[in-house]
C-alpha cells in the first residue's frame, strides 16, 4: 500500500479540485479504451498532485482534444485546458521528455506532433507528403501507409511540390519569439 503523495497546491490542482469523480468524462471519451488512466482517474491524480503518475500514463497523448469530456463536464472544468498545460510542460522540458516519452505510443504520438510543427515551420503550411515520409522514417515504421502512397499520388491527392509562404521569415519568428519568451520567463 502506497501512501498518498502530497504536493504543494498549484494552479492546476486548484482547477482540478472541482472534480467530484462522476466519470461522465471517461464515459464519453472516444479513446478511453486506449488510455492507461481514464480521464477521471487523471483528474484524481491531479488532485493529489501526482504528476509522476500523470506523465507515466499515455493518456495525455492518446487524447486528441475532441472536447467531448469538457463539453459535458457537470462541474464545468476546463479539462482540455488543464491537459494542454500538462502537455505544454512536457514539451518545454527535455528532462521530462527523456523520463516519460521515449517509449511506445507516447513516443510515436509526440514525434508526430513534433514533425507536424517542424513541417509548418519550414513551409508556413503543411506539406503532407513530407509529413508522412519523415514520420515513417523517424518512427522506424517505414512502410506504414506506404501502400497508399502510390494510389494517393495517382489520385492526385498528394501534391508533388511544396508551397512555401512569402512571409516565411516573419512566420518563423513567431516560433522563435515564443521560445525566447519562455526562456526569459524560466
Amino acid at each position, binding site marked *: 500500500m502506497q501512501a498518498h503523495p502530497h504536493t504543494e497546491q498549484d494552479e492546476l490542482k486548484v482547477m482540478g479540485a472541482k472534480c*467530484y*469523480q*462522476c*466519470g*461522465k*468524462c*471517461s*464515459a*464519453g*471519451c472516444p479513446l*478511453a*479504451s486506449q488510455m492507461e*488512466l*481514464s480521464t*477521471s*482517474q487523471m483528474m484524481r491524480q491531479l488532485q493529489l498532485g501526482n504528476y509522476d503518475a500523470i506523465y507515466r500514463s499515455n493518456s495525455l497523448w492518446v487524447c486528441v482534444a475532441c472536447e*467531448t469530456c469538457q463539453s*459535458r*463536464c*457537470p*462541474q*464545468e472544468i476546463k479539462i482540455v485546458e488543464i491537459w494542454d498545460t500538462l502537455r505544454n510542460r512536457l514539451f518545454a522540458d527535455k528532462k521530462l521528455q527523456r523520463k516519460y516519452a521515449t517509449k511506445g505510443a507516447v513516443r510515436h504520438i509526440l514525434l508526430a506532433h513534433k514533425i507536424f510543427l517542424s513541417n509548418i515551420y519550414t513551409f508556413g503550411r503543411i506539406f503532407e507528403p513530407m509529413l508522412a515520409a519523415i514520420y515513417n522514417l523517424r518512427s522506424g515504421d517505414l512502410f506504414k501507409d506506404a501502400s497508399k502512397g502510390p494510389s494517393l499520388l495517382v489520385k492526385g491527392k498528394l501534391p508533388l511540390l511544396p508551397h512555401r509562404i512569402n512571409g516565411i521569415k516573419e512566420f518563423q519568428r513567431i516560433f522563435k519569439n515564443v521560445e525566447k519568451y519562455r526562456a526569459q520567463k524560466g
Partner: protein
Amino acid sequence: MARIGVFICWCGENISRTVDVVKVAEAMAGVPGVVTSVEYKYMCSDPGQKIMKESIKNDALDGVVVALCSPLMHEKTFRTAAEEAGLNPFLLEVANIREHCSWVHENKEEATKKAIAITRSTVERVRYNLQLKNITVPITARAMVVGGGIAGIQAALDIANGGHEVVLVERTPSIGGHMAGLSETFPTLDCSQCILTPRMVEVARHPKIKLYSYAEVESVSGFVGNFEVKIRKKARSVDTSSCTGCGICQEKCPQKNIASEFEEGLGKRKAIYVPFPQAVPNKPVIDRKHCLYFTKGKCKICEKVCGPKAIRYEQEDEIVEERIGAIVLATGYETLPATFFPEYGGGRYPDVITGLQFERLASASGPTSGELKRPSDGRRPETVVFLSCAGSRDLAKGISYCSKICCMYVAKHAMLYQHKVHGGKAYVFYMDVRASGKNYDEFVRRAIEQDKAIYVRGRVARVYEKEIEGVKKLVVKGADTLLGEQVEIVADMVVLASAVKPSVGAAALAQKVGTPYDQHHFYSEAHPKLRPVESNTAGIFLAGAAQAPKDIPESVADASAAASKVQILFSRKEMERDPYVSMVNSDRCFGCFSCEAVCPYRAISRKEIKNRSGEVLKVVAEVNAGLCQGCGGCIAICRAKACDLAGYTDQQIFSAIRGFNTTSTYEEEVVKK
C-alpha cells in the same frame, strides 16, 4: 453626558483568534462618555450577561454596546437582559465584529483595527438612541396556506384542527400535488394514494377550511397579523355549487387527445375534465385552450348533457379578498423535463422518461394500470437504466445542489420494476448513494441485494437510439469509475432522476408576499438550524419542498411545524412589534405628501392642524404606527426633513458615520501599543 457601557465578546476563539479583544476594550475605555469597557470569553453565557446586567445597575448606564456576533443571532438576547436590568432595551446596540470582521479577515492587526472602528461607530450611534416601546397590533386569527400538496394539506388540517380558520389556495383544479401521482412510497412501499386521499377528503369536509382550487394569489398587502390577500379564482366554466360531479360531461366531450398533466403527458384527457378520479373537489374544469366551443365556437355538448345545468361558458375570473393573519407557503416543486437532457436524447426518444413519469407507469391508477410498458411501442422493457443526479449537482445545468429524494426513489423504482418485470434487468448509475433517513439505507441495500438492481458508480455520458432486430433500443454509454472502465448497456427504457426545483412562479409569489428566496428560487428560512420553517418576514411560514428538496415525511414534519408556529402566533389577541416606525414633526411638515405616495403600507394619513377657533391652519402628514413597517422611504423623500425613523434617525446615522472615521489616529495608537 452619556454613560455608556461597552461589552466585548471573545466568542471563545471565534473572535479572539483574529481580533485582539483586549485592545478593543482598551480603545473603547478611552472614548468620551464610555464609563465601562470590558471583554469576556462568552458574553452570551449566563455569567457574561450577568456582567452586563450588573454594570447597567452599578454604573447607571444609559447606553450599552455589545460587540459580538451578528445582531440576527443575539440582539434579542441582550436587549431582554438589558430590560431585566432596568434599561430600555432600545438603548442597547450590537456591534457585529464576528460575521463582519473576525471571520472574514486573517490579519490580526487589520481585524483589530476594523473591530475598533465598528465598535466605536456603534458607541457614537447609541448616544442618540431613543427610549422606544414596542408597538402592539391586533391579530386576525385566520391563516392562508398556499399550495395543496401534502405539505399544504397537512398544514391546513393542523391549523384547522387547532380551531382556526384556514384558507387553502391551490393553483390546479385539484389538491393532492405530486403525492397524488406517486405509485408507492419509500421506504415502506405503501400506496401513495391510499394514504393521501383520506387527507384530501378531510380537507374538503373540514368546516374550518375554505378551499380555493384552480385559484392563485393575486396580491398580498399588510403585515403580520393583518394581511389583506386578493385571490384570483380562475374561471372553471363550471358552477361548482350545482355540479354534482357525475362525470357525464367528461364522458361525452369529443376532445379526447389532450396530454394529461396528471399523467405527466403519458395519458390523455378531455377538454372538460377532472384531473384524476379521486380529485378534490371532484368537479370538472373546462380547458379553454382545447375546448371546441372556446376555440371554434361550436360544440356545447357538455352543456347539453349536463343534468343540473352547471356549465358556465361565460364565467370570468373572479377576485376575492380575504383578511389573513399568517401565511404558510407550501408551493412545492417540479422536476426538470426530459428535454433538458439533449445528451440523453430527452424529448427525442419517447422511452427516455423522467422519474415522475415512471411513477405514473408504475401506478395502479396510471395510464397502463400499473403494467410497465414502453411509451413508444407498449413493449415490456427487459432492461431499464436509471440515471441518478440527472441535472442535480450539475453546475453546467445550473443546479449545484443535491435533489435529496432521488437516491431513495431510484432504489424504489428499481425495486418496483423488478417486482413487475420478473427477470428484468435494472441498472442504476449513481455518484453517491445518499440514504440517510430512518430505514433508508436498509431499503437501498434491499434493492441491491434482494431485488438485484445493478448499481454502477459513474455518470452516463450519452444515450442514443439504435434499431436492433427491428426493435428500437437505447444505447447507454456510461462509466464504471470503480473499475475505471467504460460501460455500454443496451436498454429498453431510460429513467432520469431529474433534478428537483421550485414550482414555476415561486419567485413571483415570494415577491408578492415580500419574502426572500435563494438563487434557485427556493424560499429562504429565517435561520438554517433554529428557525427552519419561518421566513425572515414576520407572519410568513414555509413548508415542504418550496424551501428545499424534501421527501414526504420531511414535508409533513415541516407542515406541522409551520402550523404550530401559526398557532403560537394566533394564541394571542394582539402582538408586539419592533417600534421602528416613522415619526412626523408636524411643525416642519408643510403637507406636500410625497411620503403618502411612496408609502407601500398606506400608513400615512392627513391630519388637519386647527387653531382655537377651529380653522384649519395646515394639513400635515401623520403616521399610523400600526401600519408603518419602518422602511424609511418617506424620510428619504421628505424635502422638509420632517420625517424621521425611530431606531434609525438621521442623527444616529450621521453619528455612526462620524464614529467610523474619528477613530483613525486613535485606533492606530492603541493597536501599535
